[in-house]
C-alpha cells in the first residue's frame, strides 16, 4: 500500500453523484448547428484556417494552434461554415468571443483519419505533434493544452506521472463513467504519455474512494502494466492538482512553480483518453463526456457530446423545466460558474451542466457580519486565513492581501461553503486578485512612461547643447567672414588682434545706423510677443486636457518665448539710449 498524505482543510459536501450514474454514457441527436469558440483552452486563440461557406468534414481542422500554448479546433461533424463571428460563450462574465459556426449536414461524414497504433516507433516530438494537431487540452476543467504540458523542454526529467481521476466536485460523474466504460482506452492513453515522457519511474492514478466501480475497472486494466491505482478518502478539493500531488507524494508544488519543476506531470483521466484517441485512432478532440444533472432536468446522465453543442440542445433533449431551475451552472456546484443564457456552446472544458431546483441550491441569504469564527481557515486546503483575507479585501489593502498569500488561493470555494455568515468570500478574492493585477500593470505602465519622459528630457537637452555649439560656431564663422571680406588683402590667418579689430569695426557699423537697428528690434519684439501669447494659449490647453508630457513641453516653449521677449526688449532699450 502506498502511503497517503492528508491535506489540511477540506469539506465534505453531499456528493450527489448517484443520480447521474443510473445509466451509461448516452449519445445526443446531432444538433442543427455547432458553435466552436476559438479559445476553449488556456493560451492564445486558435487561428482560423477555413472561410465562411466552405464545406467541412467531421474531424477536419478549422483553426490551428497560434502559439506554443494554444490548441487547434476541429469540426465535430460535417457541414458548412455558416459564420465566423462573435458569439456569446460560456464564461463567468457572459462575454462574447470569436466563434466558428457549422450548420450540420446531418451526414456526420468523417475525414480520413491517420492513426498511429504503433506509437512506440514514434519519437516524443512526433507524438507531441500528433497530440497538438488533435487539439487536446486538459479535460478536467482547466483546459491547458496537453502538448505544451508534455513538452519537456528545459525542465528536469519526469519521474512521476499522475493521472487525476479524483473528480472531487459533487454532482460530476464524467470521469467516473468514462473509467467504468472505457478504462482500457484510458490505460492505453497513459501508456502513450508514459512512452512520450521517457517512461517515468512512478505512474499513479489518483481516485477518491467514492467510486468503487471505477477503481475496480482501473485495477483490472492496470494489472501487469506497472501503473498504480491509488484510492484515498473522499474530501473536497482533493482533485486540485496541487492537493492531489500532496496526497499522493507528500510533496508541495512551491508557490509560483509548476509540477514539472518537481519532475511531475499531472493529467486528467479524460485527457489520457483523448490522447489515446488522437494517437492510436488519429481522431482529433471533437467530443467529450459531459454530465447533465440537477432536479430541473428529468433525465440525469452522462453524454458523449460533440464540442460546440449548444447547452440548450442538451437541455431540450432531457426534459428541462426552466421554471424549476434556480440557476444554470457549467461545472460543479463548488467551482462551476453560472450561465446567463443556455445558447452558449459546450466546450472542451465543460465537465458538467448542473440545472438544480430551487430546493437543491436555493438562492443565498444575504451576507451577515464576519465574526472571524475561523471555520473558513479550518476548511482552507492551502492553509490561508480566509477571514483575514476577507477583511483586507474589503479594505483594499493590497499589501496585506499579498502578505497573506492571496495568490495561493485556488478559489475552491471551501471557505464560502462553510461560512455561517454566508459571505461570498471567493468573489472578494477574485475581485481583489483582479485589482492587484491591474494595479501592477498600471504601475509598470507608469514606470515605462516615466522612463520615456526622462529619456526625452535628456535627448532634448543634448539637442539644445548641440544647437548652441553649432550657433556659436556659425557666429564665429560669420565674424571671420566679415573680417576677411572688407580687407581681402589681409591673410586668412587671423590673430587675436584681428578679431578685436573686427569687433571694433562691427561696433562702429552698428553705431552708424541706430535707426535701422531700432526698427528691426521693434519688429523682432512684436513677433516675439506674439509667439509668447500663442505659446501661453497652447500651455493653457495642455494643462486642461493634455498629458503631463505635453504640459512640460508647452511650459518650456512659453519660457523660451518669454526669454526671447526679454532679451529683445533689453537690447531695444540699449539701442535707444
Amino acid at each position, binding site marked *: 500500500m502506498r502511503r497517503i498524505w492528508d491535506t*489540511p482543510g477540506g469539506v465534505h459536501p453531499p456528493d450527489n453523484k448517484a443520480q447521474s450514474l443510473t445509466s451509461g454514457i448516452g449519445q445526443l441527436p446531432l444538433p442543427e448547428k455547432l458553435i466552436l469558440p476559438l479559445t476553449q483552452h488556456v493560451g492564445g486563440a486558435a487561428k482560423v484556417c477555413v472561410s465562411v461557406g466552405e464545406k467541412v468534414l467531421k474531424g477536419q481542422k478549422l483553426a490551428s494552434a497560434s502559439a506554443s500554448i494554444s490548441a487547434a479546433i476541429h469540426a465535430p461533424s460535417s457541414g458548412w461554415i455558416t459564420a465566423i463571428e462573435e458569439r456569446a460563450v460560456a464564461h463567468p462574465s*457572459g462575454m462574447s468571443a470569436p466563434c466558428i459556426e457549422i450548420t450540420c449536414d446531418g451526414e456526420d461524414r468523417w475525414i480520413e483519419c491517420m492513426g498511429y497504433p504503433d506509437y512506440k516507433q514514434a519519437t516524443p516530438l512526433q507524438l507531441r505533434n500528433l497530440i497538438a494537431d488533435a487539439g487536446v487540452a486538459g479535460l478536467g476543467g482547466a483546459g491547458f493544452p496537453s502538448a505544451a504540458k508534455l513538452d519537456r523542454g528545459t525542465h528536469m526529467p519526469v519521474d512521476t506521472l499522475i493521472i487525476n481521476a479524483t473528480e472531487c466536485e459533487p454532482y460530476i460523474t464524467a470521469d467516473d463513467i468514462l473509467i467504468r466504460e472505457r478504462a482500457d482506452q484510458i490505460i492505453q492513453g497513459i501508456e502513450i504519455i508514459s512512452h512520450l515522457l521517457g517512461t517515468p519511474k512512478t505512474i499513479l492514478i489518483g481516485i477518491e474512494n467514492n467510486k468503487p466501480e471505477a477503481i475496480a475497472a482501473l485495477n483490472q486494466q492496470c494489472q501487469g502494466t506497472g501503473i498504480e491505482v491509488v484510492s484515498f478518502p473522499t474530501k473536497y478539493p482533493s482533485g486540485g492538482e496541487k492537493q492531489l500531488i500532496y496526497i499522493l507524494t507528500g510533496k508541495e508544488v512551491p508557490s509560483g512553480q509548476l509540477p514539472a519543476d518537481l519532475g511531475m506531470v499531472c493529467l486528467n483521466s479524460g485527457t489520457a483518453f483523448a490522447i489515446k484517441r488522437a494517437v492510436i485512432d488519429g481522431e482529433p478532440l471533437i467530443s467529450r463526456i459531459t454530465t447533465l444533472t440537477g432536479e430541473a432536468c428529468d433525465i440525469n446522465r452522462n453524454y458523449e457530446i460533440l464540442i460546440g453543442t449548444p447547452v440548450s440542445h442538451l437541455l431540450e433533449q432531457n426534459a428541462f423545466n426552466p421554471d424549476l*431551475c434556480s440557476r444554470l451552472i457549467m461545472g460543479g456546484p*463548488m467551482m462551476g460558474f453560472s450561465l446567463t443564457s443556455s445558447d452558449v456552446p459546450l466546450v472542451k472544458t465543460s465537465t458538467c451542466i448542473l440545472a438544480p431546483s430551487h430546493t437543491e441550491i436555493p438562492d443565498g441569504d444575504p451576507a451577515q*457580519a464576519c465574526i472571524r469564527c475561523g471555520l473558513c481557515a479550518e476548511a482552507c486546503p492551502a492553509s490561508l*486565513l480566509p477571514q*483575514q483575507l476577507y477583511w483586507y479585501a474589503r479594505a483594499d489593502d493590497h499589501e496585506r492581501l499579498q*502578505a497573506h498569500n492571496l495568490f495561493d488561493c485556488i*478559489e475552491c470555494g471551501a471557505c464560502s461553503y462553510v461560512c455561517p455568515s454566508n459571505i*461570498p468570500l471567493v468573489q472578494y478574492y477574485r475581485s481583489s486578485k483582479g485589482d492587484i493585477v491591474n494595479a501592477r500593470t498600471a504601475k509598470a505602465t507608469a514606470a515605462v512612461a516615466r522612463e520615456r519622459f526622462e529619456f526625452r528630457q535628456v535627448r532634448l537637452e543634448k539637442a539644445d547643447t548641440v544647437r548652441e555649439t553649432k550657433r556659436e560656431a556659425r557666429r564665429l564663422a560669420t565674424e571671420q567672414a566679415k573680417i576677411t571680406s572688407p580687407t581681402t588683402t589681409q591673410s586668412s590667418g587671423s590673430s587675436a588682434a584681428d578679431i578685436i579689430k573686427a569687433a571694433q569695426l562691427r561696433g562702429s557699423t552698428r553705431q552708424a545706423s541706430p535707426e535701422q537697428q531700432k526698427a528691426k528690434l521693434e519688429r523682432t519684439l512684436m513677433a516675439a510677443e506674439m509667439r509668447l501669447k500663442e505659446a501661453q494659449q497652447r500651455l493653457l490647453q495642455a494643462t486642461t486636457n493634455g498629458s503631463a508630457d505635453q504640459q512640460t513641453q508647452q511650459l518650456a516653449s512659453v519660457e523660451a518665448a518669454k526669454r526671447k521677449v526679454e532679451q529683445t526688449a533689453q537690447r531695444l532699450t540699449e539701442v535707444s539710449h
Partner: protein
Amino acid sequence: MAFKQVSSPHSHARQSTGQIMQLVLLATLPGLLVLSYQFGWGLLINILIATISAISAEALILKLRNRPIEFYLRDYSAVVTAVLLGLALPPLAPWWLVVVATVFSIVIAKQLYGGLGSNPFNPAMVGYVVALISFPIEMTTWVTPVSLLAADVSHPGLLESLAIVFAGNSPVDGVTGATPLDLFKHSDGLLVEQIYQNNSLFSAASFAGVGWEWANVAFLVGGLALLKARIFTWHAPMAMLGTLALMSMLFWDGGSSNSPGSPLMHLFSGASMLGAFFIVTDPVSSAVSNRGRLIYGALIGLLVYVIRAWGSYPDAVAFAVLLGNFAAPFIDNYTVPRTYGHGQSRRATDKETSE
C-alpha cells in the same frame, strides 16, 4: 432564456451564525442551572434584565445607524453578550448595575466600533470591567452558596429577589458572603491548610470551593460540548487552562502562607471555566490562527494567574481577556500559518510581494 448570475460556490453548508450563537446559549445552560441552584434567583433575574437591555440597546443603535433591525437581531450576538454578562455579574445586584453594564457592552464596546465582528474587545468583558471599576461594592457582594446557609436562613424567593433587585431592599443577614477567591486573597499570613480548615467554603468543598466548583464543572461540560460541535477549536481554551494550571503548580510553594493557591482552586473557582470556554473563545476579539490562539489563550491564562496571585483583584478573567484582546493583532502578525507551497510562514505586515 436568461438565468441568474451567481458567483461560485453554489452549495453552502447549512449552519448559520445565528445557529452558532444559539448553540453557545444552549451550552451555558448547565452552568446557569448549577449557579441558580447554588445562588438562587439572582442570576436568572440578571440574565433577564441584561437580555432586555441588550436587545433594546442593539435595536436602538441599529435604528440610528439605519440598519435593518430584525436582520441583525437574528444573529443572536446581543443575547449571547447579555447572557454571559448576566452570568458574570453578582446575583441580586441592583437592576441599574446590570443595565449600565449591558448598555455599555452593546453601545460602546460593540456598536460604536461598527457592530458584530468589528469590535476589538469582548463586549461582555468591557461591560463587566466598567461595572467592577465603577461600583466595586455592588460588584463584590456575592450570595452564599445554598449548602453553607445557616439553618434558619434561606435564599430569597422569586418575589423577594425581585424586591431586592428593583426596590433596593436589603437581603437577610447571612445571605451574602465572600467568594472562595476573595476569601483566599484576604487570608494573609495563614498556611493554605489553615485557610482550608478555618473556612467552610473550602472545608465543605469536594475539591475547590463550595458552589463554585460545580458551576465550573458545568461550564466545562457545556464548553466541551461546543468543542465537540466544532464551534471553536481547542487551542485557546486549552492553552488558557493549561497555563493557569502550570502557573499555579509552579508557584504552589508547598501550601505555605505565601502560596497563591492550588491548581484545582484556580481551575475551578471564579470565572475560570466560563472564561475559558465562553469568553476566550469569542472569535471576534481573539487571535485568528490556531497558533495565534494558542499564544492568545496562554497569555490570558498567565495574566489571570498573575492578577489573582499578585494583583489586587480576587478574580481576573475580565482584565486578562481585555489585555489579551489588546495583544491579539500583535499576535496575529507573527502567527500567519504557512501556506501550501511556501517554505515558511510570513508575517502579516510582510512588504515583499510573492509572485
